[in-house]
């Protein structure tokens, strides 16, 4: 079992796995998103209090969840990269950062366009929004730090340290609505209490969340494949890849 796992820790062994799995997760994301959009925009009824403005929830909440979750996964890979000095885990962390930044941007953007009709403002310096904005800057900082360091192995270590230090922000975002008196509402969905929303709305939210998961996995796998090619170039196994021959006639 352990030996099987570690065999795929080699970039050369993981590359074909990533390439093979990515389209399947991409297709799953597309199907789930179409179903989720149909439920969220068409099937689910207009909200009694918020009218149709509430429909932004179907992208806002999944994106906000993913923005934090991707960071935690990145921190996990970073810890592995620092502790075991494994290249692939650092590459996984590197592959997740742009998608984490994307999810954070979507959460902030859709939040602004939900806040305006419901609270009367696009933006407020409230604890939830400010800590989520800091998360976006953390993602940007990690990407910029990576690009600023020429030696990839040194870049791995620096980014892993920054990622782990920045992880302190994730519980701050998550608990901000409880710790401070914020404009942002508390969580609508809880593991311990009955959901405070209609089941059809919950279905739409679940579909869109699964779509966001599948999308993030697909994109991270596709990106890690590119990162592997970038960092392993010159290796014999790379020149033997069929896509290298297909690139152009030699």
């Amino acid at each position, binding site marked *: 079992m352990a030996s099987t796992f570690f065999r795929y820790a080699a970039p050369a062994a993981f590359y074909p796995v990533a390439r093979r799995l990515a389209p399947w997760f991409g297709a799953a994301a597309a199907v789930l998103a179409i179903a989720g959009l149909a439920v969220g*925009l068409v099937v689910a009824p207009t909200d009694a209090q918020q009218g149709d*403005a509430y429909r932004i929830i179907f*992208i806002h909440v999944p994106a906000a969840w993913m923005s934090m979750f991707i960071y935690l996964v990145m921190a996990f890979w970073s810890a592995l990269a620092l502790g075991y000095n494994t290249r692939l885990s650092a590459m996984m962390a590197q592959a997740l950062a742009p998608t984490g930044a994307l999810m954070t941007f979507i959460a902030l953007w859709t939040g602004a366009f939900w806040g305006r009709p419901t609270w009367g403002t696009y933006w407020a310096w409230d604890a939830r929004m400010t800590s989520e904005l800091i998360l976006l800057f953390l993602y940007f900082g990690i990407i910029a730090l990576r690009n600023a360091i020429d030696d990839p192995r040194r870049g791995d270590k620096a980014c892993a340290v920054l990622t782990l230090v920045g992880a302190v922000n994730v519980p701050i975002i998550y608990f901000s609505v409880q710790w401070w008196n914020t404009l942002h509402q508390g969580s609508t969905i809880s593991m311990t209490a009955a959901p405070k929303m209609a089941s059809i709305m919950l279905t739409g939210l679940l579909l869109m969340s699964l779509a966001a998961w599948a999308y993030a996995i697909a994109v991270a796998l*596709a990106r890690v494949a*590119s990162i592997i*090619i970038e960092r392993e170039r*010159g290796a014999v196994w790379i020149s033997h890849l069929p896509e*290298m021959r297909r*690139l152009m006639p*030699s």
Partner: protein
Amino acid sequence: MSAFIAMGGYGWYVWMAYGVTALVVAVEILMLRARRRRMLIEARLAEPEMPITTRATLDPGSLS
């Protein structure tokens, strides 16, 4: 159909949220494709056994 676009008067907010999300997701997918292509070309250039004469034709700058 026009009622769907109007979103009960919230059309601007709903479609700005959904539209920009669709746009940034599309941009990420396109950037990912471009990156893969660029990395494959660079890996091709890094191949040690490559004859020097073909390098000019594989210059990433000459490809769109």
